[in-house]
């Protein structure tokens, strides 16, 4: 069964074979490396760009304007912050031309903590991305979702952000969550599509025959049903929320866990339906906590569901500090971890109205 990086690679293969993707590019995206995380190994349209994020985003827009579906990688989202203006520009091409032009492009970038990436290589991008109008934004937490969301990005006529939680890149799919057509055996899959170490100039991947699978934007996934409170998360923190909920069911706290998957559009119906039932809402992400996308979700919850809330909704997010420090203790203290998530769910569930 694939991990997320392999799922992305298979999706990109399908994208260039069947959906007209002409360029998959960025720093170290092409041979020999095939991406800092190997997500672009063996792809026929992958190439190495200059070390210039502004050039990468600019070229991605230009390709989109020329009608070329393309996937541009920013090696780490930490390095996208010199190109926010260009990203904004990409998001306004359709609107500023009053509907005349459009710009298909997918900006793919690894996000978040979890690999001891230190001050850089640990940034989140969800607050920034959701504040830029004109983008559809996907962030998977399983290999299959990565596969299906990335295919939805590449065929979309609009600019898309495809955010990849670094911490989940090597995590394998759960049984029942495989991509149709992929070999069940990890080793077998690896043999087919992972480039060998060292010399690999003659290597060619053998792609399993995986189908088109489009996970629509704006459709969340309820990872775990529950009656007591609603936990909305995505990316690295999502599996932690699920585990916390699992553990707390021993304390007779039944938390419903929703994986948002798509941050714009997002599945408000599902959140609202759940919060109406539970009366309690916890939003969890790891971006810094001031002007955070979870605050948007919380605001909307309050504006629309105020009278159905039986406890104050809460946000659990990253500390508002300039970076994530390298030492383990520093990273742990900076962004939500299993204990802090568990405690947040527990305390919210126990508030007496």
């Amino acid at each position, binding site marked *: 069964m694939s991990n997320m990086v392999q799922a992305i690679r298979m999706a990109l293969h399908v994208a260039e074979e069947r959906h007209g993707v002409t360029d998959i590019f960025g720093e170290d995206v092409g041979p020999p490396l095939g991406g800092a995380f190997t997500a672009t190994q063996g792809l026929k349209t992958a190439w190495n760009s*200059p070390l210039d994020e502004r050039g990468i985003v600019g*070229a991605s827009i*230009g390709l989109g*304007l020329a009608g070329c579906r393309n996937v541009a990688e920013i090696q780490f989202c930490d390095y996208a912050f010199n190109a926010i203006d260009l990203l904004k*520009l990409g998001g306004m091409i359709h609107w500023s031309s*009053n509907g*005349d032009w459009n710009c298909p492009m997918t900006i793919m970038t690894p996000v978040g903590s979890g690999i001891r990436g230190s001050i850089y290589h640990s940034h989140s991008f969800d607050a920034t991305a959701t504040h830029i109008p004109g983008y559809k934004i996907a962030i998977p937490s399983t290999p299959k979702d990565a596969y299906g969301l990335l295919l939805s990005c590449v065929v979309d006529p609009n600019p898309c952000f495809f955010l990849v939680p670094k911490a989940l890149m090597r995590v394998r799919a759960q049984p029942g969550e495989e991509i149709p057509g992929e070999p069940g055996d990890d080793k077998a899959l690896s043999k087919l599509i992972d480039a060998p170490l060292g010399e690999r100039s003659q290597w060619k991947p053998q792609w399993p025959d995986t189908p088109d699978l489009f996970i629509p934007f704006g459709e969340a996934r309820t990872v775990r049903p529950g009656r007591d409170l609603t936990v909305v998360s995505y990316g690295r923190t999502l599996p932690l929320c699920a585990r916390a909920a699992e553990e707390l069911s021993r304390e007779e706290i039944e938390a419903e866990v929703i994986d948002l998957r798509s941050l714009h559009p997002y599945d408000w119906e599902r959140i609202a339906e759940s919060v109406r039932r539970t009366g309690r809402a916890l939003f969890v992400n790891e971006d810094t906590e001031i002007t955070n996308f979870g605050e948007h979700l919380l605001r909307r919850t309050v504006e629309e569901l105020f009278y159905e809330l039986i406890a104050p909704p809460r946000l659990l997010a990253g500390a508002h500090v300039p970076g994530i420090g390298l030492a383990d203790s520093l990273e742990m203290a900076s962004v939500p971890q299993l204990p802090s998530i568990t405690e947040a769910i527990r305390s919210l569930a126990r508030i007496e109205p």
Partner: protein
Amino acid sequence: MSTSLRPVLSPPETELSPELLRKLHELMVKGRLLEERLMQMYRQGDGYFWIGGPGEEAFNVPLGLLIEKGRGPQYDYCHFHYRQSATLLAMGADPIDSLRMMKNTATDPYTGGRNFSGHYSIREWNVVPISSPIEVQYAMAPGTAIAQKRIAGGRGITIVTGGDAGTAEGDFASCLIWSSRPANPLPVLILVTNNKWGISTHWQGQHGEKRISDRGKAFGIESKTIDGNDPEICYRELRGAMEYVRSERRPFLMEAIVSRLYGHSSASGANRVNDEADCLQGFEHRLEERGLLTRAQIEELRARFAAELQEAHRKVRQEPMPEGRTIFDHVFSDRDLVRERP
């Protein structure tokens, strides 16, 4: 036209035909009068902001005539800046549409009343939306050129324009770098109109380089600085450079020295300056001397265009303004996800 594999740096000195010279002149006049009308609209309250290219017609008109216009990578992509109404006219745009953009009417075909004067956008002609941030067009241009480069036998090129001061932004360097990559040199005609000013800031104190075009040399890019006030030179040089880019599928950097005849924009008053050469006056003198046009013919031309523009202005005044609720239109090109609330 040369099809040799050697760079055509000095295009053949063939005289331009009298018809072409008259056409250049007519379009230059039209371009100038259009800008004058737009400034007048600003003064009369029919628009909030004027910016444009009076003084650059000798460069902008030839450019427009030489562009292979059409939709898609077989044709030229235009990444323009905000001083190119004359280029658009030369490409065949209807001047009334520039008035509509100035007055931000709902009928403005370029932006629907959303953007400033001079900010054209025409998908049918590969004119990508002009946007206000200086120099971002130089970062995007390599993208359309990559698409063009891979068309076997294609002759479409990417053309990008901008001012002198803007070359200080890193995006100008990015354009040079991305266009000259040995792995994939790109058919980009990189143009800079050097009017020696960035708003109020003079070239002098800011530019260590003698010529902006010198910056191409380190990258092995064919580079040249030309007199942008002479439409004949501009036509010939642009034709040569374009032919090089079309056939060699490699970049060319051209700097044109031009004038800024009404200051930066309406924000600086849009007043006529006296210390800069006027390309139109100079050209008219020459055409008169050569007996290609008489003063009377010139005056007649002016009067006709002025009347047409006045009439157009009257017409545009009656046209509807956009409705507020339309701000939610066209956020996405498939469904209006914003209005539906995500």
